[in-house]
């Protein structure tokens, strides 16, 4: 598929790519995509640790799947609908500003909706579900005996965390980070509904090209650039994972 978008390109030459990188509107969108995806993934990564930690180590084994499901359940439902429901909460006459108005008596314009921050927030929330899921998988499979042995030998909880849980959970966490980065950079719904259309990211531009100007080679160029970006950004993490696994085996 991606190969095809490349071949459509080479037939015409690199003119489209030159056009892409010489158009500030498009390069800015690329930068915006990158910033958006990396920030939300970073936040998601941080949130996922305490969440997965709670589900794995604070909940009785029998109830773990239930708690995990509670976090993951919205994940099964439409992306669009969840993005939209945040609109209701964040908008200037939405629930939060209404609550503030009731509490302080003065009306305030929240000014969050249709900004980059709103997009980051929405995507981070989604990414944290993914990260929690993969991290959960890693943490759950940690051998109890390791922890017990460490504890018998006098390890404190923070030492157990540093020397056992962190290294063993890291591969799962990284997988989640990669996945959530990929989802975030390719998303169109959150940037459109929460970030607004004025400062589009690449995915939004692709969407509007296909349904608007229908410049297919342009769309192919953007798709290729997006794909290359994803590969470049994901490969260090993938490499690290492979490296890590090999070290663990040795």
């Amino acid at each position, binding site marked *: 598929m991606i190969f*095809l978008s490349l071949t459509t390109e080479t037939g015409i030459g690199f003119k489209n790519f030159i056009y892409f990188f010489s158009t500030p509107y498009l390069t800015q969108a690329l930068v915006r995509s990158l910033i958006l995806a990396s920030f939300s993934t970073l936040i998601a990564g941080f949130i996922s640790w305490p969440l997965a930690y709670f589900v794995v180590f604070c909940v009785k084994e029998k109830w773990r799947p239930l708690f995990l499901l509670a976090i993951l359940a919205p994940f*099964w439902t439409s992306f669009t609908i969840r993005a939209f429901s945040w609109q209701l909460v964040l908008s200037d006459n*939405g629930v939060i500003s209404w609550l503030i108005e009731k509490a302080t008596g003065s009306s305030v314009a929240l000014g969050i909706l249709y900004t980059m921050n709103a997009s980051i927030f929405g995507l981070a929330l989604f990414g944290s579900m993914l990260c929690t899921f993969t991290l959960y998988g890693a943490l759950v499979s940690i051998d109890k005996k390791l922890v017990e042995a460490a504890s018998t030998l006098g390890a404190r909880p923070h030492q157990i965390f540093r020397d056992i849980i962190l290294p063993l959970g890291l591969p799962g966490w990284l997988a989640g980070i990669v996945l959530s980065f990929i989802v975030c950079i390719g998303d169109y719904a959150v940037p459109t*509904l929460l970030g607004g259309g004025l400062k589009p990211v690449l995915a939004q531009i692709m969407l509007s090209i296909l349904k608007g100007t229908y410049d297919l080679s342009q769309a192919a160029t953007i798709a290729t650039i997006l*794909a290359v970006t*994803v590969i470049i950004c994901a490969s260090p993490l993938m490499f690290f994972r492979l490296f890590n696994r090999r070290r663990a085996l040795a």
Partner: protein
Amino acid sequence: MRNLIVNRPVFILLTAFFCVALSIIYLPILVMIIFSFNSGRYQTLPFREPTFEWYVNLVSDSSFVDSFFTSLFMASLASIAATALGFLAAYAFSKAKIPFYSLFFGLILSPLVIPIILIGIGIRLQIVSVGIEPALWLVLVGQTLYVLPLAVINLKNRIDKIPKSIEEAGISLGSGRLHLIVFILVPICAPTIFATILLTFTFSFDEFVIAYFLTNFEITLPIRIWTSLVTGFEPKINAAGSAVFLFSLILGFIAQFILLFKQSEKQNGIEPRET
């Protein structure tokens, strides 16, 4: 194990964090459901009289109903196709010796690590260059591809757990390969197969990009909702959103419940039978 890793203050902190996170996740959805019963034309508080008006509106709007049935139809076909193909693939990956195993397995799972928008645009460019018009059956192909990795992973996990002795017993009692799959493996995996169908159904039911890129005129429910959100707000979207949310939630929950609970109960793959 809990006391060894998590001491009291950390436990309280984690619990509090979890509760806050849960409420943040569910707050907007709750708000949407509340708004779907609000009689006001605009999405502002305070809450006016409760009403079912938007739901009635929704059901009587033929564009919504039609798109719902289109989605239902597509998702059913895609989920069954993906589960059937996924079962065969999972069986192959689990039992057969395949050259370049990890390469092929990676290829099957690759839709997971490609942004879905690239899948959609890729297929679109492909069909245009070959000269096929965008149509509904292409969406079916695209969505089957999109949910296939899910099916393969779930089913492979299950098939991996079936002890080899069962198959050997079947073969020594004179069962052929096909007979073995149909009458022994499928019944053993039945709960997982059911869960996989449900899960892939929800994903394909809610899928937007592929359907959006691969059709011109046929409309699925996510497309209908999206159009309404982008072009101009209709209050019945709250109702539609709530309905779709609950629908997917219930299906997904049942599926995950089966996968997480039932499977761990029967690790060895043999159910005791009273005969």
